């Protein structure tokens, strides 16, 4: 394992500490709970607060989405492991500005149990909490049971939309409704070329042949639909798009936002080759691109690969997509 770190056990805490030192004008930890981090200006009185959280190692997911127009607070777990309900509860108390809190996170069982328990604790304190779990990864379950799907890079779109909606002063019910609408409209599928190494284990998260890729991989290296031979960018993107477009029922004349997301070590240069393929494929089908995003929006440490997300647009989502967002990691 060749990493820039001091001791694997301190990986998460030291990394968070670096983020807080670098961005102390944006972010602050909750007193007594260093894994609970909130916007410097939280709680924003009267605004619905958005709490997120999950395992570490996915930057900018989750901590990187805390900021204006996105989330208000985050609880951070160990690498690829849920944070504790206690940290979530601390975040909840610290960000509630009186208008209630939306729990917005990726659909993983461990996180769900912890967030649900944190919501119980919050309810005891009279804080209203609603939950939206992002489950955008089409490779992880069939359409019929899509609420079982994993939450992956599509999280970005849901933060963007829900965050802008909350920033605009909507009520908790409204923010939840809009977040659910975004969730209904987003699909993601990824492809993995090489695993990452979790510092604490020192071992690759999965095994793969020199010419193989894992189609439909999850952001913790969860196996996808199949291992297959490495194909051209053109072929890989067509494969991903076929799944996404059919699952999301996008047709000629529809408008989508596109996210070509690098999972860690894939060079930007390659992501733009992929984007070119996406652009051309969609153009051929008569599908319009409302706005493209290319870069690292949800990573898995140094995993090699990319994921492709589509957000089907409608007029009600556009103002939220176009609103500014400002975190130490994301500027739109």
């Amino acid at each position, binding site marked *: 394992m060749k990493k820039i770190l001091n001791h694997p056990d301190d990986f998460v805490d030291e990394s968070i500490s670096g983020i807080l030192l670098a961005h102390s004008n944006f972010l602050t930890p909750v007193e007594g709970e260093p894994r609970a981090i909130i916007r410097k200006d939280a709680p924003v009185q009267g605004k619905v607060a958005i709490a997120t959280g999950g395992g570490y190692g996915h930057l900018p997911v989750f901590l990187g989405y805390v900021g204006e127009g996105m989330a208000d607070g985050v609880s951070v777990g160990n690498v690829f492991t849920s944070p504790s309900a206690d940290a979530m509860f601390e975040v909840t108390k610290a960000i509630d500005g009186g208008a209630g809190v939306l729990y917005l996170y990726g659909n993983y069982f461990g996180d769900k149990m912890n967030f649900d328990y944190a919501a119980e604790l919050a309810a005891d304190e009279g804080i209203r909490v609603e939950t939206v779990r992002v489950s955008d990864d089409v490779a992880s379950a069939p359409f019929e049971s899509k609420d079982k799907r994993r939450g992956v890079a599509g999280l970005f779109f849901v933060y963007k939309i829900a965050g802008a909606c909350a920033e605009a002063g909507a009520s908790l019910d409204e923010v939840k409704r809009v977040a659910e609408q975004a969730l209904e409209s987003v699909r993601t599928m990824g492809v993995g070329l090489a695993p990452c190494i979790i510092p604490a284990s020192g071992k690759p998260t999965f095994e793969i042949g020199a010419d193989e890729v894992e189609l439909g991989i999850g952001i*913790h290296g969860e196996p996808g639909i199949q291992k297959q031979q490495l194909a051209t960018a053109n072929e890989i993107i067509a494969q991903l798009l076929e799944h996404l477009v059919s699952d999301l029922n996008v047709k000629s004349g529809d408008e989508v936002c596109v996210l070509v997301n690098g999972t860690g070590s894939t060079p930007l240069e390659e992501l733009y080759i992929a984007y070119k393929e996406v652009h051309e494929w969609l153009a051929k089908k008569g599908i319009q691109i409302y706005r493209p995003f290319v870069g690292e929006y949800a990573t898995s440490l140094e995993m090699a690969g990319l994921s492709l997300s589509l957000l089907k647009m409608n007029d009600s989502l556009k103002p939220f997509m176009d609103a500014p967002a400002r975190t130490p990691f994301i500027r739109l």
Partner: protein
Amino acid sequence: MLEIISALQEMSQTLKEEFNRLDGTQGDGDLGVTVELVTKAIHEAASEASDVQSWMKQSGVLVRKQAPSTMGVLLSFALSAAAKSLVDKDVTSLNTWIDVQLAMIEEIKKRGGANLGDRTVLDAFIPASEAFRAAVGAGSTVQAALQRATKSALNGAEATKNLVPKTGRASWVGERAIGEMDGGAWLCYKVYDTIYRIF
């Protein structure tokens, strides 16, 4: 009690890689880390507790904070439920321990929504607790009851080899999981086994 905790901690260290491996075939390969964190937490809880009930209660809190993965959280809920069921009970009575096991199982079912046959820790835990109850009902000693429970847990864990996961991370693997035991079920067997060896 301290002896059991130490033995569990030792077990978690010895088998860490094997837990990770089993979890890795169908999940994210971190179960060994979780088990290590859980046993560390219950060890820490022991130093703050005066009796079994308060130890279990404190264990529930610390495990929740320090090992919040799926297995960790389910165990923390189960430990809290166990602590609740122990209030004002005679901890030397085997019937008390039948109830403790049932309370834990009920809580895991409630929180996790899984049941027998879903390829989880329950596939070892439920048969083990039933074997324990049956043995106590038939007048067995604690040793004999634990022995029968351990054996049932092992059988249950072995049987998960042929089960398709329905819940958690493993459900994404589906049929591909078949062939190896469920890590959580095997953990359950190892816990019974460790306790049995102490008595």
